[in-house]
């Protein structure tokens, strides 16, 4: 008998003597549940970090409608209609780490908020809820304030899917 055969015979006997079928099923179950829980862990949510003073208590409107206050400078498809939300990307897409930033006025409390328009990238255009409001959009020579830039250039894939509008804090209003 070759060395190989001997090795596998020994291993198989060891497994059958020491392990049980139920034990195997238990292990398999734990692995499946564990693997299922991994996406729930707070990883890869860089753009969610440092969210200051979310205006949830003073929020009104439909996040799937283009006239929702956070979308005042959006130019693209709303992630809310594409399997994501106004502040998260649909599964299977990656949030671009570089983005353009503007401000929108919340009609409920009358205050201006800083909005980060992170694009979601990696699969072809979503095609739902096209929204083009462009408030504060500047020509390409002010690239950091232009929504015509493909901000997916900062992601692994430069293919644009949809846009989010994440509140990252209150705007500073110069005292009069």
């Amino acid at each position, binding site marked *: 008998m070759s060395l190989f055969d001997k090795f596998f015979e020994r291993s198989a006997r060891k497994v059958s003597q020491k392990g049980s079928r139920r034990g195997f099923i238990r292990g398999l179950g734990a692995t499946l549940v564990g693997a299922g829980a991994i996406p729930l862990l707070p990883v890869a949510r*860089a753009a969610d*970090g*440092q969210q200051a003073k979310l205006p949830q208590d003073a929020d009104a409107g439909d996040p799937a409608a283009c006239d929702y206050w956070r979308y005042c400078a959006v130019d693209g498809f709303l992630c809310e209609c594409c399997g994501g939300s106004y502040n998260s990307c649909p599964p299977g897409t990656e949030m671009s*780490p*570089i*983005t*353009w*930033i*503007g*401000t929108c006025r919340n009609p409920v409390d009358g205050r201006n908020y*800083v909005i*980060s328009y992170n694009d979601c990238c990696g699969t072809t255009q979503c095609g739902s809820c096209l929204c083009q409001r462009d408030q504060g959009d500047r020509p390409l020579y*002010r690239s*950091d*304030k232009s929504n015509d830039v493909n901000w997916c250039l*900062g992601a692994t894939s430069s293919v644009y899917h949809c846009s989010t509008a994440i509140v*990252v*804090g*209150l*705007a*500073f209003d*110069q*005292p009069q």
Partner: protein
Amino acid sequence: MSKALGLFGGVLLLAATWCSAAQSLSESEVERRAEFNYKMFCRGCHSPDGSGRNSVPVMKNYVGHFLKSQAGRDYLVQVPGSANAALDNEQLAQVLNWIMINIGGASLPKNFVPYSAEEVGRLRQNPLFEVVEHRQRLVVKIEAQLKKDNNK
């Protein structure tokens, strides 16, 4: 005693002058405005905490090293993201100082001298052309110095 009072008065006067120069903003308002300007003009590429990504250089716990040479200090104003920002000299100086204190972390020199509006205004008049190469030369010097410091 009267000397101490005189000194105190002088400090108050200086503080008052500085406040009026800052359009009557309080210290906390200046800080809030600087943080807002970071969000509006820097954060989009440099990321919320300055850690950068891909071709965007890391500022977190590093940017303060540039202050350890005059060329490095000048560079942080002359780099296009600073020099071309739609901010006046005073607000650009304040956002740079905010970055140094809040993002520079351990890299901030102990004898940090804040940027002034005058310094920023002067440096903005001398734009950089070969930005990437210029930065690379500065980083080589910074890394050599850090290596030397670590070996001490």
